[in-house]
């Protein structure tokens, strides 16, 4: 018993060390979304001027089929990286992508789409303070959400979509949801 007490420090430290080892493989900055398996937030977003839409993006647009909601902004550097691939997806007609122009001057948001291509079926403008983005629990751009036929958010991807992430992670989820 007595020597058991003297074992305590090394035991406690051993447990700590195991946690540290595990911690090295974890990313403390990665925050999972709490919106998974919840309906998409209510929204009625204004159209992007110049794009020729009569309306922007509504909650109803995300029901009845599987779709992807993509948060972008003309100020967003990482968005430039994923954008060509989004345009490719649009061409392939796999799944409709809805854009939300977040925290942006809509004129710039449109000019940016003209320059880099427009992969979106519908685009809604979410001006500061980005109420819809906050409703989506957005922390930065680009972020993408997969929404199922019933309008329930099923997956969130933080950061640019690369061909690899698309084919390995996102596309299988979309296919699975389309089957239901």
């Amino acid at each position, binding site marked *: 018993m007595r020597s058991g*007490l003297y074992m305590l420090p090394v035991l406690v430290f051993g447990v700590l060390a195991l946690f540290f080892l595990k911690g090295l493989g974890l990313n403390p900055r990665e*925050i*999972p*979304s*709490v*919106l998974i398996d919840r309906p998409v937030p209510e929204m009625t977003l204004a159209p992007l001027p110049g794009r020729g839409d009569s309306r922007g993006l509504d909650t109803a647009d995300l029901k009845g089929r599987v779709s992807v909601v993509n948060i972008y902004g003309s100020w967003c550097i990482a968005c430039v990286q994923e954008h060509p691939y989004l345009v490719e997806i649009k061409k392939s007609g796999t799944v409709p992508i809805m854009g939300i122009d977040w*925290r942006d001057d809509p004129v710039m948001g449109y000019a940016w789409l003209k320059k880099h291509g427009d992969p979106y079926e519908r685009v809604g403008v979410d001006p*500061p*303070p*980005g*109420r819809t*983005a*906050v*409703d*989506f*629990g957005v*922390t*930065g751009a680009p972020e993408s959400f997969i929404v199922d036929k019933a309008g329930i958010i099923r997956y969130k991807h933080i950061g640019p979509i690369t061909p690899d992430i698309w084919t390995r992670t996102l596309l299988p989820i979309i296919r699975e949801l389309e089957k239901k």
Partner: protein
Amino acid sequence: MRYSLLASLVLVLAVTSPALAVNPDEMLKDPAQEARARELGKDLRCLVCQNQSIDDSDADLAKDLRIIVRERISAGDTDQQVKTFVVDRYGDYVLLKPPFKASTLVLWLGPFALFGGAVALFARFYRRRKAGAGLPAPAPLSPEEQRRLDSLLKESRQ
């Protein structure tokens, strides 16, 4: 002492311009409501900064959340309702003071359990020392010795 310790030196601070967190144009007219918003802001974590509250951060998202918190307050929400509003969107992670629930039981009760454990050890330590500080306990008195002791005690009492 925010950016202070060794690491601070070690790098690319995520901070651009310090101090410019809450701006006059965001503030509520009613000082009582504004004070509530400030207090709430101190308890909510800025999600894009490393470890700052939205009240301290000049990040755009922090500013948005400050404005939205103030909108909720103006709309008549209680402090708890505002927190619930933000937690519904970003999870418990935004709360700098973690809620008391099953997953944080160890965090909240741990320190007091530690203190209790330490006091118990403390008490044990003294009991053990009192019991003879590791020396073998004295052998019990023989009947002869006991008789002598009793008689001595009796004498001293008279």
